[in-house]
């Protein structure tokens, strides 16, 4: 596959844009006019050609720019990468998962050759070429999880499975929707989901946890989550709240199409073979309402979902200040006629 990587920014002048092709393949998450939490997990099997789930991991036109933004965030705040010492087996598991997937699915960009434990890795887009001994930390410039985490889009956390629960024991987290790795480190599944409204009462987390504890190697799982972000900013962390929180007050019905972005997270989970841990990947896709409206069907659906969203969810997702302006901007696409089920663009 030919991939043309864009030069763009996710901060300051915000030059991030989606090409028509990226808009076409945007993982629009709403099959229905209403949205409520559910146990929306499914086997992570290859999806339609060209879609965000065609491959195990999705590399798109934003790959180089997103890795550059990640490097900036890590340089400013090294605490965005953290790993407890007992995660070393899991770290190698993750390195193997990512390298195998990239080299298999994007052979023009990534090359991996294994000679016993001596591995050679070439990442052409980022200009990286290294030979190292699998399992020997000292043969890489940094811990294996940080090394590979810097070469892949999205946030990644390593979960250790013990006492019939999952614990966040490592993470590389630079594009999160207002949650903190430092805060959640060492917490259990129910604890770190504590702030989420409605879902606990609905029994969603209890079922989701049981499902994950049974997850098997070779049978990964995915789900979609979503929120909204003002300006195409990846780092909407609590740590840097002062850099982006104010932007929520700048939205008007006139500029909402350009400023308000739908933020979709493609979350994938994989059982790790050597450590028996789980790795959780949160891949963030951003699209302005204006670009979303390239496909009026999407804008119409988005209008209904946002207009009728449960107030607890709107509050939790931080949409309250600009929700009305965005709904007003989107309303011009909604003629009120029924929409068929499904997330398709047309």
């Amino acid at each position: 596959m030919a991939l043309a990587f864009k030069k763009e920014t996710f901060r300051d002048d915000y030059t991030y844009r989606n090409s028509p092709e990226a808009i076409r393949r945007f993982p629009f998450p709403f099959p229905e006019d209403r949205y409520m939490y559910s146990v929306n997990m499914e086997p992570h099997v290859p999806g339609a050609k060209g879609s965000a789930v065609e491959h195990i991991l999705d590399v798109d036109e934003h790959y180089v720019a997103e890795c550059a933004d990640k490097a900036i965030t890590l340089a400013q705040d090294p605490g965005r990468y953290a790993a407890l010492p007992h995660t070393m087996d899991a770290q190698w598991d993750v390195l193997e998962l990512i390298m195998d997937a990239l080299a298999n699915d994007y052979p023009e960009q990534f090359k991996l050759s294994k000679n016993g434990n001596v591995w050679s890795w070439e990442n052409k887009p980022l200009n990286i070429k290294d030979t190292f001994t699998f399992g020997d930390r000292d043969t890489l410039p940094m811990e294996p999880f940080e090394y590979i985490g810097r070469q892949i889009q999205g946030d990644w956390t390593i979960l250790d499975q013990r006492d019939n629960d999952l614990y966040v024991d490592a993470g590389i987290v630079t594009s999160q929707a207002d949650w903190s790795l430092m805060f959640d480190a060492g917490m259990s599944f129910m604890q770190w989901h504590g702030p989420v409204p409605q879902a606990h009462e609905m029994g969603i987390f209890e079922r989701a946890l049981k499902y994950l504890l049974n997850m098997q190697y070779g049978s990964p799982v995915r789900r979609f989550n979503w929120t909204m972000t003002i300006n195409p900013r990846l780092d909407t962390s609590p740590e840097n709240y002062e850099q982006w929180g104010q932007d929520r007050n700048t939205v008007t019905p006139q500029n909402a199409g350009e400023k308000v972005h739908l933020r979709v997270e493609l979350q994938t989970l994989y059982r790790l073979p050597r450590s028996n841990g789980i790795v959780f990947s949160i891949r963030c896709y951003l699209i302005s309402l204006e670009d979303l409206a390239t496909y009026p069907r999407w804008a119409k659906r988005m209008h209904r979902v946002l207009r009728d969203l449960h107030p607890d969810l709107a509050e939790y997702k931080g949409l309250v200040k600009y929700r009305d302006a965005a709904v007003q901007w989107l309303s011009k696409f909604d003629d009120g006629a029924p929409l068929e089920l499904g997330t398709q663009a047309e």
Partner: protein
Amino acid sequence: MSLNSVNVKVAAIERVTPLVKHFTLVREDGGKLPPFSGGSHIVVSMDAGGKVYRNAYSLMGSPEDTDAYHISVRRQERSRGGSVFMHDKVTEGSALQITAPTNLFAISRMGRKHVLIAGGIGITPFMSQLHDIARNGFDYELHYAFRSPEHGAFSDQLKARCGERAHFYVDSNGKKLDIREVLSRQPLGTHVYVCGPGTMVAAVLETARDLGWPERHIHSEQFGAPPGGEPFKVALAKSGLEVEVPGDTSMLQALEDAGVEIDSLCRGGACGRCMTEVLACDGELLHHDDYLSEAEKASGKKMMPCVSRARCTHLLVNL
């Protein structure tokens, strides 16, 4: 529960004690097997001419060895027959099917020290756990009890691997394992792992609890429920079809294979999408999902065909 299976063949068989044989399994297509974590087990399916045995066995080899898996089977005369079949019928070159490794007996990576207690064939999960322990440099002790010298499977190998951290208790020599003594002298934060005969497991659990060890620090080997089950038939009220559900296939998969349209999502009994109305069942519904409440399960009016099955002669669903 996943029914994904791998075809393997037996590359070597070695008798290790009068009752135990060690089997080396390699992929039929010559490829690599997945790496795994110490304490994992696989489910081996044996086709005994129509009857299929499914037994869980611990993986004993090094988790880094992806060329072959190693299991040991003790001949159990009074069991359902799988181990006797492995001993008497399976030869080098025989074809078997295995599931991907699952681990319900992993080393707790936060533990300060690990005490491993094995009785007889219960040594097998520790054979792979010891690799994880060595690679991570964890502190540990191994206590291994067996009937008589010729029944001490792998004891020479363990002496060489573990040195003075391994302690052997040979019943016929009058040497007994004193569980209370071993557990009493452990530092705070130690985890104990036991695999062996039921009486030994019960004694270790009871002693550890009695000494005030937290439940989280006490581990006994567990095998997951083997995937699949007995074959059964399901009749569909709307289409009038009758569908056979083979033992190694879920009811959802069998319905899909028969061309029945049925909504589904997680395929693991959690999301509720494939919920199916049961109109009649003259036997028992085997509910394996986490979606239906206990009351709903008891009512027998709904089931989740992605994981649940039936044991009956007539099952009628509203599809």
